[in-house]
């Protein structure tokens, strides 16, 4: 007799725990943000978070996302991946299985986005990485998208730019061999450069590992190699050290970077050493027009600095997510079915007009969009220099 009471009571308790949450799920749309709030690139995480919060403000002001004539409130689940691959995987797994998010935005860097994309694809949850340019992130993963161009595109863009702008034939590359993004891009650049200038035209191909602070032996080798230009696809904390040390070792030739330079902190850490250098990126803040300018001004007013490309791409990625959810037609309340519907809607997004350019996804979930070459001005601003389209 007593046992059956215990059974009945525990049944009631368990159903009380589960029913309201099941009932809530159909009401709110949860979007996961997987961002590097701490670790190597915290500024990237900050930009992600700020852009997402600004986007949420707009959605809240509109009363939520409208799906099939009904407005659903939106909740952001922002989690820190500590800028580590294994933490990014953990964060994705938690957001998918425990928080039951509909879509994931992030992680930003390829190092985290490649392994985290695997998890999202296995759980059949749509994920869009705003900033990851390595091809492996979306390759053969129907549920994974990105908000930016790819390294196989960026590599040739930079090689062509250097060749066209300076007419150089010998280049050196310095990159972090332990990180997916610099390693991938360094190799794509090498391929493109050797295609343009013949084999052996990359005269020094030097590497280091994450957390290194002294690059003097690599740079000494590069200087000795007779290279005319140094290409270094590194993140902002290393850029400051590499550029300064190169100058101290007597290097006075151009140094060219990639979209990872685009952080708001690069110039702050690097100072005058970085003035006059070029890098390729997704958008240029100085001289922006229309809604890009609107976004920049609003962000600047709210957080006190000009948003970097990560913030802009996160903004666009969230915009695509919103468009996709609106086009689903109806939210069933079954999270697995809804995730699949959102994925299908996302793949169908055509000519999405974002602040970093127009985007249409290819079959792999990569957008076709233009790159921008930026020059760091003598005031430390990112000036638009040239636009390169595929």
């Amino acid at each position, binding site marked *: 007799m007593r046992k059956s009471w215990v059974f009945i009571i525990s049944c009631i308790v368990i159903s009380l725990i589960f029913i309201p949450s099941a009932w809530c799920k159909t009401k709110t749309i949860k979007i996961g943000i997987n961002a590097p709030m701490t670790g190597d690139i*915290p500024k990237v995480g900050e930009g992600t978070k700020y852009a997402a919060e600004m986007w949420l403000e707009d959605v809240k002001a509109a009363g939520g996302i409208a799906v099939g004539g009904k407005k659903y409130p939106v909740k952001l689940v922002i989690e820190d991946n500590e800028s580590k691959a294994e933490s990014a995987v953990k964060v994705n797994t938690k957001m998918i299985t425990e928080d039951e998010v509909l879509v994931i935005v992030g992680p930003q860097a390829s190092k985290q986005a490649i392994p985290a994309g695997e998890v999202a694809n296995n759980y059949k949850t749509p994920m869009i990485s705003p900033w990851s340019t390595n091809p492996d992130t979306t390759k053969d993963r129907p549920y994974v998208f990105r908000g930016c161009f790819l390294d196989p595109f960026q590599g040739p863009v930079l090689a062509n730019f250097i060749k066209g702008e300076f007419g150089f034939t010998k280049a050196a590359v310095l990159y972090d061999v332990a990180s997916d993004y610099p390693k991938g891009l360094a190799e794509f650049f090498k391929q493109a450069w050797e295609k343009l200038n013949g084999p052996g035209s990359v005269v020094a191909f030097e590497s280091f590992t994450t957390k290194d602070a002294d690059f003097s*032996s690599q740079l*000494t080798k590069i200087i000795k190699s007779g290279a005319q230009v140094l290409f270094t696809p590194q993140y902002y904390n290393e850029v400051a050290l590499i550029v300064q040390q190169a100058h101290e*070792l007597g290097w006075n030739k151009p140094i060219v970077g990639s979209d990872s330079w685009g952080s708001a902190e690069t110039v702050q850490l690097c100072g005058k050493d970085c003035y006059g250098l070029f890098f390729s990126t997704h958008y240029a803040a100085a001289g922006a027009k229309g809604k890009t300018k609107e976004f920049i001004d609003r962000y600047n007013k709210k957080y006190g600095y000009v948003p970097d490309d990560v913030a802009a791409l996160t903004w666009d990625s969230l915009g695509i997510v919103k468009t996709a959810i609106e086009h689903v037609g109806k939210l069933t309340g079954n999270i697995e079915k809804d995730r699949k519907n959102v994925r299908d809607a996302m793949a169908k997004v055509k000519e999405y007009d974002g602040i970093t350019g127009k985007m249409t996804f290819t079959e792999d979930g990569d957008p076709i969009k233009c790159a921008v070459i930026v020059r760091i001005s003598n005031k430390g601003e990112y000036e638009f220099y040239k636009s390169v389209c595929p």
Partner: protein
Amino acid sequence: MTFFFQNLINALQWGSFYALIALGYSMVYGILMLFNFAHGDIFMVGAYIGFGVATGVTALASFGAIVLPKWLILVLTIIISMFLTSFVGMLVERLGYRPLREAPRASAAITGLMIGIILETGNLALLGAQRVRFPTLIKSETYNISGVFVTNKKIMIVVVSLMLMLALHQFVRRTKWGMAMRAMAFDFVVVPLMGVPINTIAAMTFAIGSALAAAAGILFGVAYPVLDPYMGIVFGWKAFVAAILGGRGSILGATLAGFLLGFLEIFVAMIFPSTLRDLIAYSIILLILTFRPHGFFGEPYSARLRL
């Protein structure tokens, strides 16, 4: 030939940091028979304190309208930060290690790791994950000596480190306190019975080691002006390797081993592909330790006495 000399200069600078940090490890290990794994993080704390002091002194100088030359600010920063960081070291000893002095050595080593994590995450909580740029205290000037590029910073770093090492050597050789330290390193059990105050000596050892780490931190900030809360970890490990390689408690050994480590890293990268740098450099060190398990100047019997 210029290529060789350029690398030699690079290695001298890089080795100075290892040597300065290795000294702190070596002293604590020699005198208290303790692996102070938090030492790399004390180096980080020292760099941050240096950042704070440099910013503060610069601000004070501009407020009080006293014209302080930049080099004086640097000297003041080094002295004040060494002083402040030595208290951090004493605090670590008092709170972390002294209660565990009778505990198994493994517990003390674990304590070091934990204190290290506390210092890193404490800094993260206090200042956030943002990188900090160390203020430019001396304007970088590059001299071109027939193709070899030397900066005034590099010269300053090597000279200041050597001066500090010499000062430490004199202190340990010539003063009464230094004699007490050497005696303690010789025998941990009997010497306190002779009336040498073990707590004072332990605190002093930590204070000196931390002050040297702080100096290393500031010089590091001058050369590589980007600070982050985790900068001390790998650096600490490598300096620890130098301390062991130099021999237990040997000042000369730690200094030489620190420079050797710097030279190995730079010259391996000069000859082999830079990807293989640490692999080859540390394999060589493993080989040296196989043939000289007590390091360059370590005495075999002293380890036996303690354990």
